[in-house]
């Protein structure tokens, strides 16, 4: 639980809503200039590599004290020629609207929307032990055929499961872990035993009073 909770903590529903809108616009612009894959990869790199290692840079772009003109110049100096023009223009637009703080949300939404358009789906698989490549591929192909969509597998390991796997597609969880089954058996047995006790107390006690 703890490890997959981390990214969700940054979730902000208001920013995400804006992020969805900007991401849709960027996808549209990138499609018409045929540079979708490149744009997505660069956005991810921007957020995950650059901003993550230089939080000051991120603050700088988000700061309302620095004027749009200055930010524009900085963007040009830093990225011109090294970045897809579509993405650079997009960053300038975002900066002009004062929405640089939504960049992580945009990045998050970009991948999702791209996957949705191309019939791809992200599936999170958690298992007790690390899966070997063969199993992974088998799983991906099985899931792809049953979902009729291309599957992007995200694999996690959680020894607490004891055995089996948990597959999460969107908001639906298919839990086949041993830990869950044990918990269920425990719950059901307990409920059943209490019921039996209530129905026939004398059945469980012998008559002798020693």
């Amino acid at each position, binding site marked *: 639980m703890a490890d997959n909770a981390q990214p969700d903590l940054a979730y902000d529903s208001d920013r995400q*809503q804006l992020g969805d809108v900007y991401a849709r616009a960027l996808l549209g612009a990138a499609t018409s200039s045929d540079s979708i894959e490149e744009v997505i990869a660069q956005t991810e790199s921007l957020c995950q590599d650059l901003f993550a290692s230089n939080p000051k840079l991120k603050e700088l772009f988000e700061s309302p004290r620095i004027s749009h003109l200055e930010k524009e110049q900085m963007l040009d100096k830093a990225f011109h020629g090294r970045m897809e023009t579509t993405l650079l223009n997009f960053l300038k637009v975002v900066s002009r609207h004062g929405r640089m703080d939504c960049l992580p949300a945009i990045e998050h939404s970009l991948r999702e929307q791209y996957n949705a358009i191309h019939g791809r789906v992200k599936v999170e698989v958690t298992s007790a032990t690390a899966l070997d490549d063969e199993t992974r591929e088998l799983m991906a192909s099985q899931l792809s055929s049953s979902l009729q969509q291309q599957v992007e597998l995200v694999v996690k390991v959680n020894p607490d499961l004891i055995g089996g796997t948990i597959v999460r597609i969107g*908001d639906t*969880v298919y839990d086949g872990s041993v830990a869950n*089954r044990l918990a269920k058996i425990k719950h*059901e047995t307990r409920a059943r035993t209490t019921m039996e006790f209530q129905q026939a107390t004398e059945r469980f*006690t012998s008559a002798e009073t020693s």
Partner: protein
Amino acid sequence: MKFNADEIASVLQQEIEQYESQLDVREVGTVLEVGDGIARVYGLSGVMASEMVEFPSGVQGLAFNLEENSVGVIILGDYLEIQEGDEVKALGRLLSVPVGEAVIGRVLDPLGNPIDGKGPVDTNERRIVEAMAPGVAARQPVSEPLQTGLKAVDSMTPIGRGQRELIIGDRKTGKTAIGLDTILNQKDSGVKCFYVAIGQKDSSVAGVIKILEDHGAMDYTTVIISGASTPAPLQYVAPYAGTSMAEYFMYKGEHALIVYDDLSKQAAAYRELSLLMRRPPGREAYPGDVFYCHSRLLERSAKLNDKLGGGSITSLPIIETLEGEVAAYIPTNVISITDGQIYLQPDLFFAGIRPAMNVGISVSRVGGAAQIKAMKNVAGGLRLDLASFRELEAFAQLGTDLDAATQGQLDRGYRMVELLKQSQYQPMPVAEQVLMIYVGTRGYLDDVELPDVQPWEARFLTFIRDHKADLLAEIVDTGALSDELEAQLVAAIEQFKSADSPAIAAVETDDAEQDEATTVDDQEQPAATEES
């Protein structure tokens, strides 16, 4: 007693053998924020309004707000164990509570969990908490009386089975006392009683339970508690849960009585939830649907038609006003929903008139249909008489000389007021009520000194019970006051009056008012002006 290990093991073994490995499919979301009894959840994309959800700690909640990007959940239990990032699971069902004969005599929380330490509630039946009220075709007009055992109520604002009668008044005016007396009076009537305590001090609820136990009323009563310290979601759910338990009996063709003590606290809990959920505030910061919150609750009190068994739920919602302000938002709402109200006033209460009912503005919209014939007969003009007496009394205070007729009317009024006083926890059978009101309205008390009215009443009733029990029996049997019966009654009164001396009976009513009087100290002074 010894446990039989083999038997227990065999049950467990059966359970394991029958256990089929099934893939557990669930819909999940993630807690974004949590606090004050609510949680905001991301995900749960397929969850439906009012669907139950479960947190990892086992605490359950209700999907309350479905928004574009998140789901607002009200938490029914301890929200302190829930953390940001926790996985929330949709359960795919609605909130329900255990119902059946097993809940009778128990003290439960709003989810139906026992809190009286008497073991689990032994029933397999459950009813959903937010059940729909019966429709028009399923009902019939209220006709059967529900006796409260209070002279003032049964004579002037009679309550019928299936009626909703509001009890309204400032704090410490005896609102709960009326509800309690009504429950005590259902002892042999077969009516199942439910007392829902919402947002009250746990000490006062403990007091109520003690009184119910002492009077043997717990044999047919269920107490549902969500005290002042329970989170707002539980306080909001409590009256619906109580009603579901009562509905079980209504749909079985039996009769139930439910006292909501009090709905102003429930409205405050609902306001708290709604504001935390960022629903727009309206008048007095209550949300726009606070009217619906109460109307859908009170609509569930009904008298079913004979095809459905003719069962009923009678409800006595209680509303606390501030400084007698009945025009506030919640009081006007509930007044307009209910079929009448009993209005209690602090100045009457402190003047020793208990129950402190203001006769002028207390009404019952079902009226005479919910009275036995004899009572209708004797108490017909009582309400108007008392109202005109109040007017006269105010006029007489100016100190003008009065003619004999007016003085007579005043004296009669004073005696009626005295007669309608009643001690707490001493509900009176309806036949005796008929007798006393007959005595009062026909002027047989006019020659009794004012302070002697209550002792006289006690002596007279002892006399009737001892010597003329057949009179009472006949009123109960026929329900009417025939000319012949009336003649016998007059004869009995004359016989008593000729033999009466103050020493005959031990006084049984005088210890009445001290129960509530102890709390007078911390009250503000009642308004000195006389209200008509």
